[in-house]
């Protein structure tokens, strides 16, 4: 399946993402999930970014938290709400908000 997963937290209390399988996996970082796109802990990027997936981060939610696009990891594409709509309809078929 082509699955887009929305991650909205910095710390997750569920391990669902670790075992979800999808032929095509997209991870959309929104809300406090955007910290994964930029924040380094002890010099290391979020382990989330090591997953074999396409990564997107919502620009509005970055800006809300004082993070500039220049701080975003190169593996993550900065998108806006309109882009998220296109991802939903054109790139993926099922959506999961974990």
């Amino acid at each position, binding site marked *: 399946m082509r699955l887009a997963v*929305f991650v*909205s*937290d910095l710390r997750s209390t569920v391990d669902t993402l670790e075992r979800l399988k999808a032929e095509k996996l997209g991870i959309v970082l*929104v*809300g406090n999930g955007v910290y994964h796109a930029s924040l380094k802990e002890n010099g290391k990027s979020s382990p989330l970014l090591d997953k074999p997936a396409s990564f997107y981060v919502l620009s*509005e*939610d970055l800006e809300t938290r004082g993070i500039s696009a220049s701080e975003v990891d190169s593996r993550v594409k900065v998108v*806006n*709400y*309109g882009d*998220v*709509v*296109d991802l*939903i*309809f054109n790139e993926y*078929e099922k*959506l999961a*908000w*974990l």
Partner: protein
Amino acid sequence: MGVLSIGVFSSLIGSMNLDFALKLADAALQKGHKVNLWLSGNATSLVKKDQKHLKDYSTGEKPLKALLEKGVEVCTCEACTLARGIQKTDAIEGVQWNAMHWYLAKIHESDRVLHIGGE
């Protein structure tokens, strides 16, 4: 053009999930899609009318009314809403009141479903 149904359980103020859902709905409309919005659990607090718009707090009334005007179908879970003491007469006009099968029926006709269940 497709049909997107969004279901939300998160509270009006606090988590910002509801702000996200409202903005996503609007963006989908602007791209020409049809949007349905199902409110259940704590998200039913969104339908209370006369929310005072204080800058410190997210407000849902204005964006919700704008979505309704643009043809988004919005429905609140009747039991969840009444349990919170919000009556139909207290609610924003144009919001539908129904049981959970409303959401399943909308999902049935949808191309995409984004269910925001997490708190």
